[in-house]
């Protein structure tokens, strides 16, 4: 199974940086996310996670370091969290960590909503 590596670029700040590693199960999404046709960007990420869960079947860790995501992106992130919750309910080992800016209370509210809507536990860590 191939890794996903998408580098950020100053010319396209609306795309986040993505690193999904199939050898460790560590997945990271960082930066900002407010591109057009959000679902086209996130579909390969969701597909990758589903394939990892069904074929590799090891522990998976999602680290989110998004300082901004638009509401379309929140829908896609919620889809990923729901997929991980299903895996956890089936016995899979899942860890989700959200790194946040301590001066950004709106983002903490957003993470609480993600927890409530997906049912998965999200660890909050301060961005350093």
């Amino acid at each position, binding site marked *: 199974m191939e890794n996903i590596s998408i580098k950020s670029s100053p010319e*396209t*700040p*609306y795309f986040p940086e993505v690193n999904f590693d199939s050898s460790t199960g560590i997945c990271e999404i960082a930066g900002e996310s*407010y*591109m*057009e*046709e*959000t*679902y086209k960007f996130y579909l390969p990420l969701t597909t990758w996670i589903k394939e990892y869960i069904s074929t590799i079947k090891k522990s998976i860790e999602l680290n989110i370091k998004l300082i*901004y995501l*638009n*509401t*379309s992106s*929140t*829908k*896609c992130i*919620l*889809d990923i969290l729901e997929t991980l919750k299903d895996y956890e309910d089936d016995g899979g080992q899942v860890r989700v960590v959200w790194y946040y800016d301590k*001066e*950004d209370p*709106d983002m903490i*509210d957003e993470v609480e*909503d993600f927890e*409530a*809507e997906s049912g998965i536990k999200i660890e909050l860590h301060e961005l350093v």
Partner: protein
Amino acid sequence: MNIKTLLSYRGPFYIELISVFGSNVRSYTSEYSNANKKLFRIFIELAQNVSYYSEDFHLVNNESRIGVGELDLVEHESHFTFTTKNLVKKSDSKILIDRCNLINQSDQMELRQLKREQRLNSPGEKFGARIGLIQAVMLSQNKLQYNCEEINNEFAYLSLTVRIDKN
């Protein structure tokens, strides 16, 4: 202080432009830490609403639909106002006005609940989450100002204004 127009634009809302304008919004308001993040986030939501839903649009490569509309960012003594305007179908205008009224009648907790329900039930894909307006009002903590002006038998011009307090 006189009111000061910080940004004014009319045309297609390409993501490349939205991104550059968004960067300007951040720099113009950087001295107001409370308003700065909120303004950028509200700006992106409302600008992308125009881009996704305006009935006046460009087709790029016969595929991507880029909405045409207007935006204005104005600085006042104690707050900023951000306004977008775009064409809507007259048949949709009542639904949109009802939606604005519902949002304005809801308190923060009700808006949060509405946002959660809407996001869970939205079809996703090209329709997005359809919670941009709710998010904008939740962030600003001020009522939405709106106006729908009939253009002809088929279309109306929808104007939305969000107020963001400086402190």
